[in-house]
């Protein structure tokens, strides 16, 4: 398929800079997800790659060739839009045929390609239907079919699942991932939903305010968020954050005193010069262990229990008033107003300095750059 390379890509509207210098290289056959809160510039970036928005400065390379000044159709990409953007007056077959017709593909070849794609997407029985007669999921499939049939070098998806209901979204997520594995096409996918990003991506690009906060595999981002923003954004329910002060630091360990007075040991290094400085301790709800322990102990009162069946979320108020979410397996017999004790495993804690940048963590798994 194709590689995509972004070199210092910028986008300026009148006086405001929306995309502030993005560098990114996407390997062939890679499934890359742009994720971020609304207004972070992820859709703009995708539209710039598609050619629907001008690139103010920087270079966009597809397969090593600079395509900044090429028209969208000449870049060899296909896009699936959030609203599907099917042509309402054409039936399913004609929708998929339109691009091929404009590319002057012979009739027999068109028919062959469309029928093959329709079979892949289970649309054979709907070829004569107009988009208005189809369900949301079917329309989604037609939009994907319209993209596939042109055999593009790169697929672009702009929040394709956000118009579907929750169960259909889960189903389409699996279908998309399966389809990507079968086609092996380079794919760029935009979403604000971190679950979609985590489940489908080979590589996640977290964006905020036009800046790439971190690039990495889903597990890299989960285990080694580079800063507070990524730590907050990746993972559900989101990571807990507690303010504290560094009281001692060695090569292997940093000791932090929380606002509540408790002392926590964190497996992080190179923080000798931070002694006395304010830091933020981050720990994921699923990593906090219920029960008494000697090290890294904490306690509080349960305010609310959310039972999810396979797990439960305990909302715990600590003595100093900080609210903590703890995820436990199953219903563990904890109820609202119960007092609980728990511990933060040293190797699972994250530390962020006053600028919100993560301290180097000493733990298993791949290291973030």
């Amino acid at each position: 398929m194709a590689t995509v390379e972004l070199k210092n890509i910028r986008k300026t509207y009148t006086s405001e800079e929306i995309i502030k210098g993005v560098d990114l290289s996407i390997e062939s056959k890679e499934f890359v997800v742009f994720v971020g809160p609304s207004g972070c510039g992820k859709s703009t970036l995708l539209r710039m790659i598609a050619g629907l928005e001008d690139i103010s400065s920087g270079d966009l390379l597809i397969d090593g060739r600079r395509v900044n000044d090429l028209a969208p159709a000449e870049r060899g990409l296909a896009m699936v839009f959030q609203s599907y953007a099917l042509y309402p007056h054409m039936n399913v077959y004609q929708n998929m045929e339109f691009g091929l017709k404009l590319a002057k593909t012979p009739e027999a070849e068109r028919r062959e390609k469309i029928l093959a794609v329709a079979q892949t997407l289970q649309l054979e029985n709907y070829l004569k239907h107009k988009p208005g007669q189809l369900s949301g999921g079917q329309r989604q499939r037609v939009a994907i079919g319209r993209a596939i049939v042109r055999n593009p070098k790169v697929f672009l998806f702009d929040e394709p699942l956000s118009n579907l209901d929750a169960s259909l979204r889960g189903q389409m997520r699996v279908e998309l991932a399966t389809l990507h594995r079968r086609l092996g096409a380079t794919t760029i996918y935009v979403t604000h939903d971190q679950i979609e990003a985590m489940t489908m991506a080979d590589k996640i690009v977290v964006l905020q305010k036009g800046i790439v906060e971190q690039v990495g595999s889903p597990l890299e981002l989960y285990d080694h968020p580079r800063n507070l923003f990524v730590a907050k954004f990746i993972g559900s329910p989101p990571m807990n954050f507690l303010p504290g002060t560094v009281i001692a630091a060695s090569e292997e360990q940093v000791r932090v005193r929380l606002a509540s007075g408790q002392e926590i040991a964190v497996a992080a290094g190179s923080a000798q010069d931070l002694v006395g400085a304010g830091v933020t301790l981050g720990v994921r709800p699923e990593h906090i262990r219920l029960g008494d322990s000697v090290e890294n102990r904490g306690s509080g009162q349960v305010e609310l229990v959310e039972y999810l069946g396979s797990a439960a979320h305990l909302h715990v108020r600590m003595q100093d008033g900080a609210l903590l979410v703890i995820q436990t397996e199953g219903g563990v017999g904890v109820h609202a107003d119960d007092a609980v004790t728990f511990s933060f495993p040293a190797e699972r804690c994250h530390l962020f300095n006053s600028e919100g940048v993560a301290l180097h963590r000493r733990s298993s798994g791949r290291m973030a750059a």
Partner: protein
Amino acid sequence: MSAVTTASQHHRKAAIGAGASGALMLAPAVFVLLVWSVVPLVLTLWYSFQNYNLVDPTLHGFAGVNNYWYLLSDPDFLQSLLNTAILVIGVLVISVGGGTLLAVLYDQEFVGRGVARVLVISPFFVMPTVSALLWKNLMLHPIYGVYSWMMRAVGLTPIDWLQRFPMLTVMMIVAWEWLPFAVLILLTAVQSLDAEQKEAALLDGAGPVARFFHIVLPHLSRAIAVVVMIETIYLLTIFAEIMVTTAGGPGVASTNLAYLIYSRALLQFDVGGASAGGVIAIVIANIAAAFLVRAVARHLEV
């Protein structure tokens, strides 16, 4: 006999019991409808079979189909039918064709778009007699008109449009009045086109022309159908513009059916003949309406 009476009485009672209040509610509307449409229709039909001439009161009584025969065998009548068709079709082509292009143009971003939009709509607000006068005296007058002045300014002899090409000129004036209406309706339709659809077409490799014919025009088809229907209804009865500019002349060169009926009734005082023309106009309007409603209904379904 008595059985029949009781049966009908019984029937009437039941009907009154079931729908008395409904009928009562409907009565005013039905009454107004009768007075406003059925009475004139019946009177027109009645007069069309009567000898009725205002300048010759001695001639009266039932005329049979004479009024119709006289009218249908009159070459002026055929000319007026032809002129009506030319006027309707010509104005429709100009206003819908031009309206579509202008709507697409005015959908683009350009400096002064707001002002330009107001200007393009404004002719619609000028009443027909005034706009006809504007064209006749201000623009096309062979001596004082702006057009004539422009022609002379470059050393050319101005054409007396209303004299040389009366039908074409009337068509232009009416099209000038109705183009804004088409632009107004079609512009709102163009603006409702989903931006992502245009972008999808862009990615499919559609150039401006392909996008216009494959995306914009199909999207506009319903709006165009509505414009054609509404304009046709009004264009069949164009009168003021002809009255003011050419008075149907020279000869009957710019007389349409509406003007012919007027001239029969109020210039030649032949009420019977004019009524026959009116009945024919009603028949033609209904045929046109039947076709249009069918075509539009098909477009509106989807």
